[in-house]
């Protein structure tokens, strides 16, 4: 589960849980198919669809040095009805 950083808990993500859609933050380089493959393998579920978007990255600057915070891609994974993922307790806010 290298690519998947953590599950996201926001108002929207909680709402989507009701529709059997799970939200994760994923490292930028991964593609939808890779993630789909991983999730199916890891949790033993059937993925119907994967939607994704890039999170707006934030620049960081300490004096002359320019940098940026970690850029994530957010994946919203829709599971086939009847499947579910036990969400871990880890929460990053």
């Amino acid at each position, binding site marked *: 589960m290298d690519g998947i950083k953590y599950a996201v*808990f926001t108002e929207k993500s909680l709402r989507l849980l009701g529709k059997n859609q799970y939200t994760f933050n994923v490292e930028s380089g991964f593609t939808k198919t890779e993630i789909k493959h991983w999730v199916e393998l890891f949790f033993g579920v059937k993925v119907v669809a994967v939607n994704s978007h890039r999170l707006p990255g934030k620049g960081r600057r300490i004096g002359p040095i320019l940098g940026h915070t970690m850029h994530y891609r957010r994946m919203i994974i829709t599971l086939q009805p009847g499947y579910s993922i*036990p969400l871990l307790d880890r929460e990053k806010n």
Partner: protein
Amino acid sequence: MELATAAAVVSTASTHPGRNRFYSSRSASWSNCSPLSSSRSLSTSTSRFQIRPLPVAWAAVELREAASGGGDSVRVTETLQPGSSVKFSVEVPPSICQECYETTLMEYSKRFKVPGFRPGKIVPENVLINYVGPQHVRAATVEAILRHTLPQALSSVEERALEDSVRILTKFDDMNNSFSLEDVFRYDVAVDIIPEVRWLSEDKYKNLKVVIEIDEIVDAEKAAEVELKRRRKALGLLRIVTDRGLQVGDLAVFDISAETITTDGSKGEKIPSAESTGFHLDTEENNNLVPGFLGSLIGIRPGETRSFPIQFPESFDQESLRGVRAQFTVVCKELFFRQLPELDDSLAEKLLPGCTTMDQVRERILERCKEVEKTAIEQATDNAILDQLGQLVEVDVPRSLFQEQGQMLYGAKLLQLQAETKLDRDQLASLSSEKSVQEYLKNERENITRIIKQMLAVGEIFKAENLQYSTEQLIKEVENSIEEFKRYNQDYDEGNIKQQVQDVLEAAKVLEWLKENCTIEYIRR
């Protein structure tokens, strides 16, 4: 003591307006959120909130419980302890813990803005706990439980409990660690109650017998004579003695030095406190001299030097000199004798302005001395009665009362000290530190206990005898003391002053009553 929880919940909500917000109709509405929220709980507790009734249903359940009077209740075990304190072992059932836990979460959800959730939106419990920190939630819940259950636990002694004397015996850390939503929550709390006054004798304070010893100095007639003599002496003239040695009645100027004598006869160290140059000695008033000192000096002529040994008596004022043998060397510098004026009417005006005859002077002085005597005797009587009272009662003095009284006494002492010797800020701070106060309390333990005993005894008598003081008197006294406070530009609390004045008036009344109703015997020393 058994109290119905549900009933208590309702009553708390109505009697503590400040806590009402916890019980608003919204209180449970957020809890019926997504199934996700039930997947987590506090890290130490394993309980989960799976089925949550809707707000309306919740309220209904609460009401039903209240109506039936059933449900869990706070279990309190009372144990009496020495020092007039009562120990309560409180057991809080899980249901109340749960309730407090929810109110705490409610508070938190209002206070914090959790990222990803708009303000006012319902945040799932686990998200919130994670955001705030489980330890914080636990600590706050324990606090809420204490706040909720303490009034209930202490309700049995509500009338008798002393103000600010509640001590929670269980350490907060222990409570924090032992807290769990499923288990009964236990803690110990102690409270000081108004001590019971026990009279040692059957007939209590009645038939009180007080013996008062009165010093000779306060005896008016003698005092008047002494006063007259002193005034006459002040008017007298001093003449130099040339043709004879020192006699009793003369005034002499000496240079005195003293050395201790060691056992082998050799001279020892000098005694600085016994040395003086130009010492004025009035041989008529020799009451504070070392015995034998004057006798060795009789007949000394001006310019003469005398050296003689003296043994300090065991009862000498100065402790370091008691029982010391010393060699005194005295040089007589000058010698005077007094020429006292004749006591007749012409002297009256000088003795006491405004008088024309000697008799008048005597009368006036006597009158004044009598006043002094009267107040002195009154004072002595009051003290003696109070002392007697303090011995008659037995009181288990509670710690908080002791502390309070001790601190008050210490404060008064500090104030006095400050007024006398203009302490600067640092000195005052060091004197009013916790340590020095504790030291004082330790040293003055008996004294403070005695005062408390007297106070309580006086209060008891005041009640038992149905004594009254007039409201006018009270108002007047209060006004007086407020004026005094204003004069010194000090802050004051009117309620406090009123309480104090009441105490003072009470004490005065009781003393008056006691004086009338007990046998007082005066002994002159």
